[in-house]
């Protein structure tokens, strides 16, 4: 179709479809609705780093505990499979599962799903140049099936599972851009009292910030 606007000298070539189902035939599509016990979350961010570097960081599954909340350990079990262990606050194992990578397109996209029943989840991450060459747009789409695991997630982690996905992407961005994840614990404070302690819980401050590079297992992210 011929456009009535004949001059767009600085415009990007627009994508017709995008990953994570945000765009279909040039039209915005909202994230899939939660139904039948299945939860969906889609979140995106702009990161000042090359898609290749971001793809490599994400693909390095054994380094995931440096930027995923509450993940104690990830072990590679095959070329496309890995074993994940979630910990509770004292740092003990409480849940384990396996992920399998379904699609692996360097610098562009990684998709995965869990294996062998609960917890049942699947997701993909898309790396694409941000409009106007302002960094890399990273979009994550994840889906969870509400089972006993998902019901327990909030009690175990202190976060809604959807918010965990958002926070982990935020940690990933901070690692990629600065080489560390911002944190305030432990720090000096006066007597918290009952209300201070309750507020820490409400504000999500009782969730341990992932270690970033301080753990010593460090992914080197500074270019």
């Amino acid at each position, binding site marked *: 179709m011929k456009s009535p606007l004949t001059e767009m000298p600085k415009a990007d070539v627009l994508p017709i479809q995008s990953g994570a189902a945000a765009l279909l035939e040039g039209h915005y599509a909202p994230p899939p609705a939660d139904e039948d016990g299945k939860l969906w979350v889609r979140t995106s961010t702009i990161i000042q780093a090359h898609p290749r570097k971001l793809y490599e960081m994400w693909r390095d599954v054994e380094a995931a505990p440096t930027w995923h909340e509450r993940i104690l350990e990830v072990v590679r079990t095959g070329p496309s499979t890995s074993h994940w262990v979630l910990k509770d606050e004292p740092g003990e194992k409480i849940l384990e599962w396996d992920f399998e990578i379904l699609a692996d397109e360097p610098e562009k996209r990684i998709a995965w799903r869990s294996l062998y029943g609960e917890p049942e989840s699947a997701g993909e991450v898309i790396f694409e140049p941000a409009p106007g060459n302002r960094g890399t747009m990273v979009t994550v789409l994840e889906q969870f099936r509400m089972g006993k695991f998902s019901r327990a997630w909030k009690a175990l982690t202190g976060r809604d599972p959807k918010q965990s996905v958002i926070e982990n992407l935020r940690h990933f961005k901070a690692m990629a851009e600065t080489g560390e994840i911002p944190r305030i614990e*432990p720090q000096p404070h006066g007597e918290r009292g009952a209300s201070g302690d309750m507020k820490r819980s409400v504000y999500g401050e009782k969730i341990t910030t992932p270690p970033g590079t301080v753990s010593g297992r460090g992914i080197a992210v500074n270019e």
Partner: protein
Amino acid sequence: MKAVCWMGKSKIETQVVNDPQLLNPHDAILKITSTAICGSDLHLYDGFIPTMEAGDVLGHEFMGIVEEVGPAVDNLKRGDRVVVPFTIACGNCLFCKKKLWSLCDNTNPNAHLAETAYGYSGSALFGYSHMMGGYAGGQAQYVRVPFANVGPLKIESDLPDEKVLFLSDVFPTGFMAAENAQIQEGDTVAVWGAGPVGLFSVASAYMLGAARVICIDRIPERLALARSIGAITVAYEDEDVSVLTALRDLTGGIGPDGCIDAVGLEAHMGDAQGLYDSVKTALMMETDRPGVLRQAIQAVRKGGTLSIPGVYGGLLDKVPFGAAFGKGITMKMGQTHMQKYMKPLLERIEKGQIDPSFIISHRITLDDAPGMYEIWRDKKENVTKIVIDPWAEGAATNEEPAKVARTA
């Protein structure tokens, strides 16, 4: 160490707390040599800023000597003397690259709280609520400074603390306020509030070419300070004074080209308007008292600019947006992009263009601080600016904390 802690609304205590430690590779630990109480700390004291927790260490205007640096800090070493900006910025995100330092993406560990309230999170601040990061502040003997490779400004001359301390907030904030007023040479600028930010806005407006600056307040010693740096003053509580009439009278009837609201959300209003906002905030139907904002929108000339360095936190009522639209005004606001201003303003101080210590009225110890919050909030004892020496011993008598004042 000793630190000034927020323990609830109108409740501040100096407590002994743990020393800070390095947590991240870009951290530094500072031994604080001078720190100050900011007018915006009074909003915390009065309980206007949500997400404070009992035990939070206050303070976002401080300087000191580097004690220890993390492995990724390569521009500072132990013994360096630095002033620290109150906004924490990473230096690498899209916003830092655009020099919008106070809107940094990567420094607020509690960004989700700010996203809920504001849509997106700005940079973290020291000692200014958990929505703004929850970082312990600098009204203390030591502080942890995150992203020490980006924020702190090294002071390599022998200028005394009191001349450079206000580079941590109020001088750059007043300067950005004047810049945001888009001053053209020959402009008339009106500044509401002759506190530290208002006074530095007056001084900065002249530096940027204003022909005339008018300053509005009610406290005589503040107005005297404003006159001492060249402002015409209007005392709004004087009998028969109407600020709008005064500003028309002083501008040939057209209104100021630029208006600066250096007051913010706790504007003092004595009339029915004040009662209206007191009732609405008490009923939680409004969070801020925007008396100055309303007046400044009304006062600014057609096509003029309104600059807002005064802090607003939430929802405002009866803001005359029709007047703003009808006159085609521009509004600019926000937390100060500190890293953009600190170095050029230090150069102005080094050249002797301004001595920022003129605003100081009180020099106290950490033990005096809780009493001084109350005295300042209640506008007693002619307070214009309070500077704390965190290593000075003892407390003055509660009645007269100013007596421990030491000479600079």
